[in-house]
């Protein structure tokens, strides 16, 4: 468990944040720039000290102002990957990687050099100087360097922000691999919702220095606070499912979610794999009876759970499909025509191609 409850006053900005998140797991700090994400990460790292409050990691007290505890940064064993790589220019890649490893207590060494260089594909770069690397390579080295310092917690402060879209796509799979292969809790700062969906298990929403909501990603995706941040186009339920059957010819897979089954465009997964699907509310169609003669492959039976205005001139209907919730964004007219009431039976229709999914495995967490 990572438990944070801090206050920090800075010139023209005040942060007041409390949240708790399970470990291991990936906690995403999500919010616009200037919402206090970096300040919060600096407080956890110890580079900044809060005015009041405490920070606990798995029962270890890192900061407790009232008790006068403030573990020095260099003794916290918290890996920090900054927005810029911050590689030491007077050392080779190998020298950078060994820097933290050499300073870690021998008893704490669980991540070995070869494992990390293989995981992050750095074997051919070890003799190079930082200036001879591309942006993506530099960020991978920074990540490896932090990992080799044998951290109890890894802080990633928008590690992809300085990269263009192509380079981001190059680094993201490594971050996913990290989550799957090493059971180190991660705090991931981002203002890209896409990244959050691919990586996070827990979400903390920050706005103007305040935590407006926090919780598991699938629950948070149903929250109006998140909807206000991402805008109406990206509102949608996130479902955790299991691959039941593959259809390689079609490049599709049958995924069990809640009581139903969805056929989605998904390749490079194995049967039995955990996957996370995002069903955008604008792509979900509602029907009050089973439909026939449509090209839509997926019809999930469920009951209406809530109906509310989405704040952008449309209505958001949440449908309980048995242990999972699907959101549908429909017009006012459609609401009049269907007249859904909480508890009514409904069918949620989803096109296979408009479902975005990716494999999502997490070591050490029993989800």
């Amino acid at each position: 468990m990572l438990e944070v409850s801090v206050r920090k006053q800075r010139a023209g900005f005040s942060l007041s944040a409390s949240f708790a998140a399970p470990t291991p797991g990936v906690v995403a700090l999500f919010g616009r720039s200037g919402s206090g994400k970096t300040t919060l990460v600096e407080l956890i790292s110890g580079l900044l000290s809060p005015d009041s409050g405490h920070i606990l990691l798995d029962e270890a007290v890192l900061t407790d102002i009232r008790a006068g505890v403030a573990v020095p940064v260099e003794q916290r064993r918290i890996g920090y990957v900054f927005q810029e790589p911050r590689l030491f220019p007077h050392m080779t890649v190998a020298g950078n990687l060994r820097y933290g490893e050499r300073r870690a207590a021998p008893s704490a060494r669980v991540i070995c050099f070869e494992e990390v260089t293989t995981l992050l594909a750095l074997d051919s770069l070890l003799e190079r100087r930082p200036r001879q690397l591309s942006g993506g390579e530099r960020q991978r080295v920074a990540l490896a360097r932090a990992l080799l310092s044998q951290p109890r917690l890894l802080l990633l402060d928008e590690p992809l922000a300085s990269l263009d879209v192509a380079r981001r796509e190059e680094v993201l799979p490594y971050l996913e691999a990290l989550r799957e292969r090493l059971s180190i809790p991660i705090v991931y700062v981002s203002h890209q919702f896409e990244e959050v969906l691919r990586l996070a298990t827990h979400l903390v929403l920050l706005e103007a220095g305040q935590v407006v909501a926090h919780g598991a990603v699938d629950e948070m995706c149903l929250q109006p606070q998140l909807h206000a941040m991402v805008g109406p186009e990206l509102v949608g339920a996130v479902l955790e499912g299991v691959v039941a059957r593959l259809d390689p010819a079609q490049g599709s897979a049958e995924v069990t979610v809640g009581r139903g089954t969805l056929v989605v465009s998904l390749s490079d997964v194995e049967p039995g794999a955990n996957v996370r699907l995002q069903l955008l509310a604008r792509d979900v169609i509602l029907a009050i009876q089973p439909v026939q003669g449509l090209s839509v492959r997926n019809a999930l039976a469920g009951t209406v759970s809530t109906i509310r205005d989405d704040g952008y001139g449309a209505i958001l209907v949440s449908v309980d499909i048995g242990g999972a919730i699907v959101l549908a964004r429909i017009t006012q007219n459609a609401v009049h025509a269907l007249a859904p009431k909480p508890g009514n039976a409904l069918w949620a229709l989803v096109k296979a191609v408009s479902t975005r999914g990716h494999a999502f495995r997490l070591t050490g967490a029993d989800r």
Partner: protein
Amino acid sequence: MSGALTAAEIDALRLSLEVAARSVAFSLPLAVLAAWLLTRVRFPGRMLFDAFVHLPLVLPPVAIGYLLLLLFGVRGPVGGWLRAHFGIAVPFTTAGAALATAVMTFPLMVRAIRLSLDGVDRGLEEAARTLGAAGPDRFISITLPLMLPGVLAGAVTAFAAGLGEFGAVITFAGNVPGVTRTLPLALYTAMQLPGGERMALRLAILSFALGILGLLASELLVRRVRRYLGN
């Protein structure tokens, strides 16, 4: 003009190099410390300290030599103590010439080092901290290597300037042949002698050659270190 150097010229050259080298060796660690204090530490009286460090730049060298005499003379506060406890007398020795030179070249060195310390990315030190490097370890492994160009430039400039220090040396350490008569003092002495013009010219040319060599060496050194640091 005969090519070979006379014994007196070799003496003066050797002394100049020795005095400059000893002054740099003595003042370099202190200059790094002073630069650190002035750049990184907020303390009361920082501006006063800054002014004090730069004093030798604006005071007449003879005045500095005189102040040193007052302090380190056998009846001075520091000189008396040194004599009583260690039996050492500094004035009118080679060490005294080196001390006077060190004081005079100190501001040059501090300026160069400060400039490079200012240029060190604090973010890299923060990164080193998160990787487990505590204060002194961080300074030696990150800060010092990154400010090395400035430290070397400061040392070489101070060395080159120290070869020619005149006023403070002659006031504090005198003009003793073989002990404190460095190149500029030998040049000055030759000019005072009837028929010494030839020797004065030879010494002037020697000083000039030495200065040029020093500047070139400094440039080469700094370039090489920059390349090593990856800039």
